[in-house]
Every structure is written in structure tokens, then in C-alpha cells.
């Protein structure tokens, strides 16, 4: 220990550092802060890394407690799952957020739809960027869902006790494709109209009640503004709602069936 303590005025950077530290302490001591961040949160004052606090972070978070507190070691290996399931879900969230932005500027009528998309491109701040993210995000989600399905099959992760979860996954795949297809019509341009014509004509060939199927899908005899409104509601409300229900079952079954399968 030094016999004499060197006293000098602290430098400006040191004073800023101490000042910031004091400010942070004040905030973290406040009642408001502690009412928001419950014990175990990393934002609480005095959070230290310990097994108990690591458990609290999961248990006390509404978002994170989708996960268990601990998982098997191989489940963390990115090369095992490539995070494909998680990415599919994340892309769904991304699409929902960008989709809600787009909803502010879009009217689902034959007269207005195309103009609204064009206006988004030209007159809305970040409109073009958000529409692009929505479009490419949708393609990415279909791709990642397919890759996730392939991964699960190659790992045999559909075997007992996970058979039912695989079936739920197939349903989710179908819903994803339907979501993508209903969204495809919404710009009401030539690409949309004719892709949907091909698709719905094929569905009209369903045996026994093909005509009725086509009528229910289109809302009339031909693709029209009724179709647009119907597919808008499907795309924005019904299909996401059903998807979320099946997602909940899917995640629930992953936990209940013992987490990620494997290792091989």
C-alpha cells in the first residue's frame, strides 16, 4: 500500500464516468424501475451471474419462459437445428410487424389496392422498404419452414413421442403456404391476378364439390373485388389467428415431448 495517496482533480472522462454511474444507480434504485424489473432481471441493481439468477431470467420473463430453464447441451448446437424453427417463428413476427405497417396504407378494394401499393412505394416514408421486407420475409418464411421440416425429418425427430407434433407442423406448413398465397393477391397487379387464377382454377377441380370450393374461395364466379376483400380478411385475420393457435400447440408439444430430440 502506498504511503502517500496521490490526490489530483479527476479528469473529465473520469468525472463523466462517475456521473453516469451515479445516474444509473439512481434510476435502478427508484421504485418505478424496481416495479418493472422483477428480481432476477439483468436490469436490476446488483445483478450478478449465478445459476440462480440465470434461472430467474427465464422464469420471471413472460417472453423467455416459453423456454425451459435448462436444455440439453446438444440442443444449443446451432449446427444441429440451424435455428430453423426459431427463425420461422421470428420471421412470422417480422411479417406481422411489417404487415401492420402496410395495413395503415392499404384498402382491399379493386379500385384502390394497386394505387395504395404504388403510393406506398412513392409517397410513404420507408413504404418501399417495409413492403420489400414483407415480400422477401414471406418468401424467406416459406423457405425456412420447408428447411425446418426437412431437418426434423432427417433427424427422425418425428418419431415417438413427437408424432402428433409433426402432424401439427404439417398443418402449420399448409397455413404458411395459404398465408403466402392469400397475400400474393393483395397488390392486385397482373402477377397477383393471374397467379391466383391458376391456383383457384386448380382448386376448382376438387372432385364432387369443386365448383362450390371455388365459389367459397373467390366469393363470386370470377376473381373480383369480393375475392380481394375475402382474401384480405383471410390473410390479415383468420389465417394468422389459426396459425397462432397451432403454433401454441406446436411449442407446447415441443416442451412436453422432452425438448429438442437427439442427439443422433
Amino acid at each position, binding site marked *: 500500500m502506498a504511503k502517500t495517496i496521490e490526490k489530483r482533480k479527476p479528469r473529465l472522462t473520469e468525472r463523466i464516468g462517475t456521473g453516469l454511474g451515479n445516474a444509473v444507480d439512481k434510476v435502478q434504485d427508484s421504485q418505478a424501475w424496481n416495479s418493472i424489473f422483477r428480481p432476477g432481471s439483468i436490469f436490476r441493481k446488483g445483478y450478478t451471474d449465478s445459476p440462480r439468477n440465470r434461472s430467474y431470467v427465464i422464469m420471471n420473463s413472460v417472453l423467455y419462459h416459453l423456454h425451459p430453464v435448462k436444455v440439453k447441451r446438444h440442443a444449443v448446437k446451432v449446427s444441429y437445428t440451424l435455428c430453423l424453427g426459431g427463425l420461422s417463428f421470428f420471421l412470422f413476427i417480422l411479417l406481422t410487424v411489417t404487415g401492420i405497417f402496410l395495413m395503415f396504407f392499404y384498402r382491399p378494394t379493386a379500385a384502390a389496392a394497386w394505387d395504395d401499393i404504388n403510393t406506398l412505394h412513392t409517397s410513404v416514408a420507408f413504404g418501399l422498404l417495409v413492403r420489400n421486407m414483407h415480400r422477401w420475409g414471406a418468401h424467406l418464411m416459406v423457405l425456412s419452414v420447408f428447411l425446418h421440416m426437412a431437418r426434423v425429418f432427417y433427424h427422425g425427430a418425428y418419431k415417438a413421442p413427437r408424432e402428433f407434433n409433426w402432424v401439427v407442423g404439417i398443418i402449420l406448413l399448409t397455413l404458411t403456404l395459404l398465408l403466402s398465397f392469400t397475400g400474393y393477391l393483395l397488390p392486385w*397487379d397482373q402477377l397477383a391476378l393471374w*397467379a391466383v387464377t391458376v391456383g383457384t382454377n386448380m382448386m376448382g377441380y376438387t372432385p364432387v364439390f369443386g365448383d362450390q370450393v371455388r365459389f367459397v374461395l373467390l366469393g363470386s364466379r370470377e376473381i373480383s373485388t369480393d375475392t380481394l376483400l375475402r382474401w384480405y380478411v383471410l390473410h390479415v385475420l383468420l389465417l394468422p389467428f389459426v396459425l397462432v393457435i397451432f403454433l401454441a400447440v406446436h411449442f407446447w408439444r415441443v416442451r412436453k415431448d422432452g425438448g429438442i430430440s437427439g442427439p443422433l
Partner: protein
Amino acid sequence: MTEIPDHLLKRSQAARAKAQGAAGDVGDETPAAAPSDDDGETIPRSLLERSQQQKAEGGAAPVPAGGGGGVATLAPPAGTGPGGHTQRLLTVIRSGSIQDVKSKPVDKVHVWPHLLAAEFTAALFITAFTLIFSIFINAPLLELANPTVTPNPSKAPWYFLGLQELLTMFHPMIAGVTIPGIVLGLAAIAPYLDKNPSHKPEDRKFMVSIWTIHLMFWAVLVIIGSFFRGPGFNFTFPWETGLHGIFHL
């Protein structure tokens, strides 16, 4: 602490008096609140004296037999709870009935930080990728929908191009309903058809091969539909028509 109704209080006091009269010992009686020999405190004096006796004798606190892994034991009625509160036995839970007690330990890691860090990185990466892709490449917007004019070629989105390729080869019902229906149906019941319990690829060569062929089947159809179909949906080579003839970018 809850109030004990008077008639139950009297009944327990009568029972206690009877038990004390019959045997010289209190026995396994679960302690009720406010018995007749208390001083208004929560610990019955008789039990307190008994525990003090046992401490003096150097004996262990009375614990019911059968304490094994996971069995909930009755708290010793000598008032060992905080503040002298005693506890009432509700039920005995056998190990394995609610939680699955594993016979051998599994190597596990904390989700925070390990799994969440990996997930965060993946989400960050895909967001960055989508953002940068969206900055440079625009989503298509062709002319206003016109039912009297068909674009040439008119293509479905890539995930349906496989089906559109099938349309060139089969009747629309087969291509659009039958084949996709059978494919989805078979895929859905695959776990119930697969009797092989192994997860290892070397033990599942048949399934892995079938699945790979299935994926390649669709991939080839999508690639042909994307790059090798020009005007009139006729087969062309991409270097003949150019990308503009194939895509609508």
C-alpha cells in the same frame, strides 16, 4: 392464522383429553391450533415439553418413517416452523408422480445465456439479411390487374411452381388436388408408418433416401418452372430468353 370454529375446538379438546386419558402419550396427533393446554401461544405446552425432554435426552427430533427421495414428510410437531407455526399434513406425494425423475442425469446448460444468445444471433442475422436484401431489390409490382390481358408467361410464386409444372403434364385435378393431397397426407402420417426406432441416418437409409428423392423432385420442378419456362410456358434455356423474359423484376 385461521379462526377455529368453536364446536370443532371443543371436539378437538375432548378428543385430546380422551387420548391423554387412554394412552399416556400424545402419539402421532397432528397439532391443532389453540388446544386446551396452551397459554394462548401457538405451541401446545404438552408438545413443547415433549420436545424439550427429547432435546435433553439428546435424541433426534421425531420424524415419521419412510422418508425417501421425494416423499413429503410431516413437519415434526415440536413447533419447528418459523414463529412457532406448525404445519398440517395435506398429502404424501410419491416421487415420479408429478415430475419425471430421471434415472440418469442429463447434461444440460442454462437457456440464458447459451440458447438465447444463439437465437438472438440468428434473429439478428436474418433481420440484417432481409433488410439489406430489401434495400437493394424491390418487390415486383406489375400493371394494374386486367382480366382481359394474360401476361406471358404467367407464373405462380416459386413454392407453387412445382404444382404448375405438374399442370403441364397432368390433368388439373391430378396436378392440383390429387398429387398435393396424397403428398401432404403421406407426409402427415409418416411418423405412424415409420416403425424404425433409430434416429441415426445410417440405420434409416430407406427413409432418408425416400425423403431426399421427394425433396429433389420438387426442387427440380421448381427450378425448371423458374428458369426454363419462357413465353407460352414453353421449355426454353435461360440464356436464350434472358432473365427478363422469365422473371418480372
